[in-house]
């Protein structure tokens, strides 16, 4: 390993694994929520996924340098969701073993202990286009046995609701500060897919509030290439905002 690669930060591994979510997606809209996924989406666009579409966060489709190439107001954005030509990476205040996600509220819905964002577009997203998740602080508060309000639909809820619901439902991955997770198990429960270098399986288990499937051999998250690191550090995030979202 070269000297440059030895000082890769945790946030940079997270950027790489977020970017990987959009590999081989083709000509679809990459919709990242959060700092690290945003850097990841632009990194993917600049390197191995050049056909991706990106937005400026409002109503414009833009190239990685900000050049406007299209117009995407909310009403058309929602059609892109239901048309399926989009892969979103959303946040999660809570996520459970089957990928049910909550961003609405904590506690009893009737009178919540903490009102959060609301369901927003999580229900329509999970039933129509691939939805990955990003959790910048992996803890038992986020990775819970049961979410308080199902906003994003998980595999068990989708299966229970029937074929209309499962038809386009897919959660490709969950990226957290500790590793990458997927649902490649017989019962579609969450599995540890890779550990970020420096993290142990024990650490992940302790920070997860449900029983996680851990394969016998867990790979480490891949190293960024020299070109990727240069793009992240000098082009996409010279101010180092990524290291504020994820420490270490």
């Amino acid at each position, binding site marked *: 390993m070269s000297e440059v690669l030895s000082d890769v930060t945790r946030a940079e591994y997270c950027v790489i694994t977020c970017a990987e979510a959009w590999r081989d997606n083709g000509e679809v809209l990459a919709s990242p929520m959060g700092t690290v996924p945003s850097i990841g989406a632009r990194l993917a666009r600049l390197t191995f996924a050049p056909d991706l579409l990106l937005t400026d966060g*409002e109503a414009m489709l833009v190239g990685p340098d900000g050049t406007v190439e299209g117009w995407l107001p909310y009403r058309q954005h929602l059609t892109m969701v239901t048309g399926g030509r989009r892969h979103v990476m959303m946040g999660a205040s809570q996520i459970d073993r089957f990928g049910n996600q909550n961003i609405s509220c904590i506690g009893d*819905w009737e009178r919540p*202990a903490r009102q959060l964002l609301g369901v*927003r577009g999580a*229900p329509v997203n999970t*039933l129509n286009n691939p939805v990955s998740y990003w959790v910048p602080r992996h803890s038992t508060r986020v990775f819970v046995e049961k979410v308080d309000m*199902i906003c994003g639909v998980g595999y068990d809820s989708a299966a229970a609701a029937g074929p209309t619901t499962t038809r386009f439902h897919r959660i490709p991955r969950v990226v957290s500060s500790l590793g990458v997770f997927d649902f490649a198990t017989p019962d579609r429960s969450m599995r540890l897919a890779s550990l970020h270098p420096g993290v142990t399986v024990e650490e992940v288990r302790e920070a997860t509030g449900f029983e996680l499937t851990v394969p016998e051999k867990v790979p480490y998250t891949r190293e960024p290439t020299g070109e990727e690191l240069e793009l992240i550090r000098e082009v996409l995030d010279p101010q180092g905002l990524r290291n504020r979202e994820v420490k270490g």
Partner: protein
Amino acid sequence: MSDKTMSADEVVGRLESGMTIGIGGWGSRRKPMALVRALLRSGITDLTVVSYGGPDVGMLAAAGRIRKLVAAFATLDSIPLEPHYRSARESGALELMEIDEAMFMWGLHAAANRLPFIPVRAGVGSDVMRVNPGLRTVTSPYEDASTGLQETFVAMPALRMDAALVHVNRADRLGNGQYLGPDPYFDDLFCEAADTAYVSCERIVDTAELTKEAAPQTLLIKRHSVTGVVETPNGAHFTSCAPDYDRDEGFQRLYATTPWPEFTERFLHGGEKDYQSAVQAWHALEEERR
């Protein structure tokens, strides 16, 4: 043709307690805040509010005017959680119909098209169904060409409203409304989905002026769906109204961190002019402090 111009107070004079009112814009973007402030000055209450929620929802909730809210969220964008909406929810102060952003849009479409519902692939499998026991599903009468299945969808009910309040950049006296920013949001749909619609604007101009420099596609709202037009310069403040002005982030922070009674005392004690002067005075004071 009729001149539909009126004042914000005249708009509010046509509204009543107990009504269902739709509010245009999105989050903290192009909200008809001058009309909301006029509503706050009135005694109108017990409202059902339909909104892609921002400070419109926050202020009306803080003032105790909302009986029921229909929304997918309430946010200030740069401040993710609307503080007054949050308090209202955490104290159980309002009834909520919490639905998905797309379900909300199809509810507006249904109302605008005089349909009782529109089928949507959203909601099923989520707790939107649990917290809205009144939501029904509908099975397609057609077999899907590729799967052979007759799929089951949520029958999103029409979100029909008594009145809609929206804010745009320009309008003429007849009610033709023009947006010049990046996103129309759903303001045209709000107007079409309501029995009456009131359009506030930064500036009223002659009809011919509307397309002098702007493309015809900017003419979002058609006069047949509009009841009244109000000229309210800076009327979306403190939300954004691009390209006329951006969000007033400093003032929004003040709003979000000031207890509601203190905020109303300082900024909402008088009319719209008093509000705008009080905001200017606050900015002048902030400048001095720097």
